[in-house]
């Protein structure tokens, strides 16, 4: 019993990390249909900038705010310098641009900071919390709470606010959105800033658990992307559920089957889901009302 509990807690911890990355994917996808493969780099930047600002003497909360703000700025720059000039290019080209951007960001980070692993202290200490014979670290609760908060925030943003709806409208049909008076350039800038900020927040929350270095973004982006696909690309609910499910699959496979098959089992399940439900669990219907 306590073993199952431990597997579940591990799954939720890891799943919340994936969910946070997946949530970052949602916004840019919603605005532009582009899957931003530099999302993992935003997470990495959140962690790395916080580490170096913290080591430079800033208090941790301030360092985190600086990291989120700088990363949001980098997100805007990415949009202005790389995505916007290529407007009109097919979505695939834009996706390739984001892959290029991720390699570039990784390279610059490696030169500006260093190539070592880093971490900063957990927000509420390292004393494990006992839950039904199993244990969870306080930092995991921060990550879970962070994922839930971002989810709720995004949910209301997309369904209740005019700006959120403008983003969805832009995604649906850029020309039509412009015709009804939406400033689509501004929408794109905003979505890159938001997405980068959320990525950086994820980096700040997960670094005490996962550690950070210039190259952690690739693996995080891959798992976050898988989680987003599982839940349904572009849907915050899908990102959250997809992330947690992916974490649980991994933990339960490692616990009950074999840790050798952990990654494989998770991807087999994702493939199975996508065969049965090509849009993911909460994916948008493919028919659009015009």
């Amino acid at each position, binding site marked *: 019993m306590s073993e199952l509990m431990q597997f579940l807690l*591990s*799954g939720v911890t890891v799943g919340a990390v994936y969910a946070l990355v997946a949530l970052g994917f949602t916004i840019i996808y919603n605005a532009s249909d582009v899957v931003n493969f530099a999302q993992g780099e935003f997470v990495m930047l959140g962690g790395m900038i916080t580490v170096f600002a913290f080591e430079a003497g800033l208090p941790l909360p301030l360092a985190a705010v600086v990291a989120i703000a700088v990363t949001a700025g980098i997100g805007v720059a990415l949009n202005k310098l790389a995505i916007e000039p290529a407007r009109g290019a097919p979505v695939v080209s834009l996706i390739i641009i984001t892959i290029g951007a991720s390699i570039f960001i990784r390279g610059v980070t490696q*030169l500006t900071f260093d190539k070592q692993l880093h*971490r900063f202290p957990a927000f509420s200490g390292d004393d494990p919390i006992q839950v039904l014979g199993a244990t969870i670290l306080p930092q995991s609760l921060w990550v879970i709470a962070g994922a839930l908060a971002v989810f709720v925030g995004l949910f209301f943003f997309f369904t209740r606010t005019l700006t959120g709806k403008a983003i969805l409208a832009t995604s649906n049909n850029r020309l039509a959105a412009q015709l009804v008076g939406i400033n689509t350039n501004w929408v794109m800038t905003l979505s890159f800033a938001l997405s980068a900020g959320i990525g950086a927040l994820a980096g700040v929350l*997960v670094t005490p658990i996962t*550690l950070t270095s210039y190259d952690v973004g690739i693996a995080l982006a891959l798992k976050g992307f898988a989680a987003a696909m599982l839940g349904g690309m572009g849907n915050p609910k899908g990102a959250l559920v997809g992330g947690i499910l992916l974490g649980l699959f991994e933990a339960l496979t490692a616990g009950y089957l074999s840790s050798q098959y952990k990654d494989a089992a998770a991807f087999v399940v994702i493939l199975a889901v996508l065969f049965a439900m090509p849009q993911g669990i909460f994916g948008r219907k493919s028919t659009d009302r015009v």
Partner: protein
Amino acid sequence: MKTLTTTALATLMALGLTTAASAEIKIGATVSATGPASFLGDPEAKTLEMLVEELNAAGGINGEEVALVLYDDAGDPNKARTFATRLVEDDEVVAIIGGSTTGTTMSIIAVAEDAEIPFISLAGAIEIIDPVKPFVFKTPHTDRMACEKIFEDMKARQIAKIGLISGTDGFGASMQAQCKAVVGNYGIEIVADETYGPQDADMTPQLTNIKGAEGIQAILNPGFGQGPSIVTRNYAQLAIDLPLYQSHGVASDGFIELAGAAAAEGVRLPGTALLVADLLPDSDPQKAIVAAYKTAFEAKTGTPVGTFGGYAHDAFRILTDAITRAGSSDPAAIRDAIEATSGLVGTTGTVTMSATDHLGLDLSAFRMLEIKDGGWTIVE
């Protein structure tokens, strides 16, 4: 920035844009200064540059200056092969140091053997020197030796049943295989065998299973990078009351910092004298060598010295010692001199090579270390 300058300089040298003032001995190197193995290659590159500077300032070898042609293969075996070929054909070096990883080493071996140029590898796998290849040598201990050192210590503590949790990266997988191959010689049984991905964030499921294995007395974690730090943290989180052994892959101060001093308390691992330079007794033959390297490296780079830079240090010392003794820069003569290396004290141990042993280290080169109060102690 430093790496970039180095690479640019190396390229310039390769293109022949910088011309040497006097007669010189050209030594080639290709290491993974950037890329996924940069934590190996970066200190190696810095060490080689530093040692060449030092050597030339002290008058070079037998009055001749040494020129280093250094390439960054970024951990890519294809690039390593290209650079090795370039070193041999265009740069006409007398010997090659490098191959930060086993993968890049393997592709350099083919080139060095064909061209009959001595090659000293900085990678761990036992396949590099077993079977012996005429022109190939290496400086790091093999992972099999690390396993043997750990099992010796376990045997001394009367531990008979252990759990293995290994990384699935090249290092972890190779050491896991080597440990399984020699564990029987020590009367130790592996009762749990788990793995984790190199970028995994949580290993509590695997550790929970190991903890529950029947009769288990200790846990061994072959792996490097972030994995072992997270394993150590999870091990503390689950309050597992068993001795935890890590590999030489994490033998650095950074490990204690990443894992947290409290979680790492009592962790044992085989490390080199370099890590505990300050703790060595004055009578220790390695004391002077490691202290000199540590001081110079830390003064020059501002970063703490590590095991990997030490491998490059030893390779350079073995090579320059051989060239000095050979009294010529003919590759065949250098090869013979390297093979005749005897009692050369390096950072990883005292090297005595032979025609059948191109590593030249024994188990005494490893020190069993234990982390106490956030620092290293030597277990005797």
